[in-house]
């Protein structure tokens, strides 16, 4: 934003149009007849002009005009000197990607540079007019050429740092040839006006804001440019230095991981972590090009290499970190989680049984048969002690822990696929018959039931003064403990996910792809986070990291910030994640349909280890005294050192 009104002298007055640009057909220096305006910038304009020195041919040149903004006369003279010096350097450059300089001169406070006219468009314009992404091999060719020209500039007797690599300074002519334009000569005339702050440009390296730029700053800016070309995300519209937050392959899966890696290396915050020279980066890009041009199989394997090296379970490193204590085979799939009471684990299976297994040895204590598959988690009534479990046979069972015999059972009119919650001397559970039940633990009689009017498959969450339950209809309903309605929140689709409650907020996922945060006082929605597929997984809150973690059918495990509902990290598995995570000591434990159980660092979302089972894992891990107990669809219950 330069205020041109401050100029004391208005030069070339007769040549200027109302907007301060040269008028068409004006002749500069008795040689260049202006035939059009190519661009107008804050520092001056660029014109297309015909060179009258060659009257018989139509030779066009580009004339770049720069304003000498200094009000001080000595300063103006000094800047004029700087301009001539810079122009001389430019005129001495010779590289196919650098436009040739023919002439320069000054007229009063305007300086002119006459150079090769490029019939084409700059890359920024090309990107803005693009509906699809540019062919990768074409961009790769440009990238190699840009490295080559940077290498040339950085190795002049007086090294030149370009300092302004960005799409708008890259011209592509009608023949597809690339030129780097705007050699920062305009900067000669920029003065650091006190109190005026120049906006950030989005392509500049961090160290450029600390002091003088270095060759690696050009490498960063080239990385930023290539990042934009492949993602079509303008870095100026994002926070500075956030390229890593926009993984190239997420925007453009056709970019080979190798090429992405080259670009991300160029974009390292620390200049020492980038390529040391443009030549080095050029060589890396050439390696990528050779790989892409290589055999079909090579290209395919490139596309499949995961961005991070994956350690297979069973290798030395992982086996030392996770350790199988025992496994216990039941007669069918284990889809649900375990509960624990005084050394005994309880888990239901599709074989109709509730299994009681000694936690330390993995030996059977007893099993209790129901009439249909069990897909719910058990809960413990410590005063009994009994263990509560719902079955597809429409019943909720209370089973005496010492004997493994029936304590009581309560019949509903549908399969019980909602895990029970025992608290306040009552058990709360839902049924596919559409009711939420509250039963007295002592008698097994229903104290009340509430019609949610849709099958309930989540576990009711019971708090001091309310119970919250989610239903297939997408409704999440809060009742007081006497069964009186408090509020209802309606998601767009089914909610199977059991709400996680933290600091007065309920977090739950829905088939409508969203994770919701709802105020438990009134059911108002605070925020929602959209994932890529339905969310069946019940979230867990990690207070230390201020995140909520959950799995999604899109194959990712997400960590979302509680306070600004932005993704903190996500972790990719090889199949749907319908299981619920558990949190313990800084680690997230979660299973995936890809048959693995993962241990992930809650802070960074990095894999610490994985354990492979023989079937999909849909159960929530149960962790006790440093041991994780988890079932798999491979019929086993595993005890693994956490």
């Amino acid at each position, binding site marked *: 934003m330069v205020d041109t009104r401050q100029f004391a002298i208005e030069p070339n007055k007769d040549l200027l149009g109302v907007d301060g640009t040269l008028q068409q057909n004006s002749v500069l220096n008795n040689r260049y007849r202006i035939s059009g305006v190519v661009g107008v910038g804050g520092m001056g304009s660029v014109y297309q002009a015909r060179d009258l020195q060659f009257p018989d041919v139509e030779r066009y040149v580009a004339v770049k005009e720069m304003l000498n903004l200094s009000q001080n006369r000595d300063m103006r003279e000094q800047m004029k000197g700087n301009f001539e010096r810079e122009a001389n350097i430019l005129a001495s450059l010779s590289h196919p990607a650098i436009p040739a300089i023919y002439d320069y001169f000054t007229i009063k406070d305007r300086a002119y540079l006459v150079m090769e006219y490029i019939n084409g468009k700059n890359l920024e314009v090309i990107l803005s007019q693009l509906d699809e992404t540019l062919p990768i091999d074409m961009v790769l060719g440009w990238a190699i050429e840009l490295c080559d020209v940077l290498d040339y500039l950085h190795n002049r007797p007086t090294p030149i740092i370009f300092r302004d690599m960005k799409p708008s300074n890259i011209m592509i002519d009608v023949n597809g040839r690339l030129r780097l334009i705007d050699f920062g000569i305009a900067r000669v005339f920029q003065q650091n006006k006190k109190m005026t702050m120049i*906006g950030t440009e989005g392509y500049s390296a961090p160290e450029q804001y*600390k002091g003088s730029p270095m060759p690696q700053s050009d490498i960063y800016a080239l990385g930023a440019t290539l990042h934009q070309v492949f993602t079509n995300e303008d870095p100026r519209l994002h*926070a500075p230095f956030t390229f890593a937050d926009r993984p190239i392959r997420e925007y453009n899966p056709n970019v080979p991981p190798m090429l992405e890696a080259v670009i991300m290396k160029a974009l390292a915050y620390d200049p020492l972590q980038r390529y040391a020279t443009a030549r080095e980066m050029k060589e890396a890009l050439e390696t990528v090009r050779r790989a892409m041009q290589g055999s079909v199989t090579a290209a395919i394997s490139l596309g499949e290499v995961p961005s991070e090296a994956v350690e297979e379970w069973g290798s030395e490193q992982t086996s030392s970190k996770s350790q199988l204590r025992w496994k216990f085979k039941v007669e069918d799939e284990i889809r649900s989680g375990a509960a624990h009471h005084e050394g005994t684990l309880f888990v239901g299976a599709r074989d109709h049984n509730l299994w009681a297994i000694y936690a330390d040895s993995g030996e059977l204590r007893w099993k209790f048969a129901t009439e249909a598959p069990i897909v719910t988690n058990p809960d413990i009534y410590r005063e009994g002690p009994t263990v509560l479990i719902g079955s597809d046979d429409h019943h909720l069972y209370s089973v005496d822990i010492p004997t493994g015999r029936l304590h009581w059972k309560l019949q509903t009119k549908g399969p019980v696929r909602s895990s029970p919650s025992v608290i306040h001397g009552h058990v709360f559970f839902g049924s596919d018959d559409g009711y939420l039940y509250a039963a007295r633990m002592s008698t097994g009689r229903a104290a009340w039931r509430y019609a949610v009017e849709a099958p309930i498959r989540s576990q009711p969450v019971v708090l001091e003064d309310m119970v919250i339950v989610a239903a297939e209809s997408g409704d999440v309903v809060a009742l007081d403990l006497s069964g009186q309605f408090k509020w209802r929140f*309606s998601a*767009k689709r089914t909610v199977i996910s059991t709400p996680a409650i933290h600091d007065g907020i309920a977090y739950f996922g829905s088939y409508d792809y969203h994770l919701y945060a709802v105020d438990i006082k009134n059911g108002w929605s605070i*925020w929602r986070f959209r994932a890529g597929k339905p969310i069946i997984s019940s979230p867990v809150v990690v207070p230390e990291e201020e995140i909520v973690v959950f799995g999604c059918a899109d194959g990712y495990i997400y960590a979302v910030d509680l306070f600004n509902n932005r993704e903190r990290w996500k972790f990719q598995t090889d199949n749907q994640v319908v299981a619920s995570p558990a949190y313990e000591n800084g680690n997230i434990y979660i299973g995936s349909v890809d048959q693995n159980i993962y241990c992930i660092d809650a802070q960074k979302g990095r894999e610490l280890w994985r354990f492979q089972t023989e079937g999909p894992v849909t159960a929530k891990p149960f962790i006790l005294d440093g041991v994780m107990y988890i079932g798999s669809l491979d019929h086993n219950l595993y005890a693994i050192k956490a």
Partner: protein
Amino acid sequence: MDWFRRFLGLQPTDNEEATESAVQPAKPIATDAPTQPNPIGKKENLAPSMETLPKRPRDLPPSELDTDEADMIAADGRTRKLPPLETVQPEVGHQLVYGQLSDVGQMRDNNQDAVLSFVSSASLSQAAPNFGLFVVADGMGGHENGERASAIATRVIAKHVIDEIFIPSLSGEIGSSADRPTITEVLREAVQQANHVVSEQVPDGGTTVTTAAIIGHAAYLAHVGDSRAYLITDEFIEQITRDHSLVQRLIELDQLTPEDAVEHPQRNVLYRALGQNDHLDVDPVFRQLPPGAFLLICSDGLWNLVKREEIQQIVLEERDTPQQACQRLVEMANDRGGTDNITVIIVRVPN
């Protein structure tokens, strides 16, 4: 592409209040008059605001009730003193209480900051939590563009949030379905709408915005730029917004120390502000406020000159009188040079 610069240059203006407080920094600032909504070309001549409207005797004829001027302007045409004010004085501890102040500072001639507070305190048999809406905007741009941008943004945001949260909350139809935007989304939409209006009406201006809706003890914020919000309790003070400034990014990347940032030549460069681009990324912040906690929102005119420990200390010392805390904070910033406009809101949530 338009990269936006923040102008710290002096703008000529004849703002009287500004001049007065600029030459008399020690004088306690009596009102937050500069923060009144823009009267748009009309001279305000003691027109009573909602809050200060005096109660009239019941038996006054209705015709008299409608003639404000007759009530206040004596026969000689001079204004006479208003009767003692009867304002709502919510009891500290039970209600949302707040103070707000905006001051031009010592160096500027105009106040480009804008500030707005809107509070509803209810005692109803049905659940109706306290509602408060607070906005601080720090405008930038030459001429009058800065103050116009911040004023427009503040008005647009207040209207949208009141329309979409406060009014529906009275009819009990808020946020209980995925078909409606979440409260966080309403705040974001409000700021994005303000962005469009500012771009349209003040093409050469820009503004920061930090806005907070407080519902019960829940604070919902939306934030763009470097106006900050702090959460303050007896135990701690925590900055809950993150500046969208170049130096903040450099600090986060360990490329700059917070100490160096204070002196950095580009410390005023923001990478995000209203009025710069059609697309605006708005940062939401949600917090449950502990009982009796304070939320403080301020422009950089305060936080550049007053340390956070000092902010906490003054807020706690004046815990029952947030307005007094605002005045002391503004005085402290002015004593240290008042290099920029200073705006602060302090809200205390119920115990």
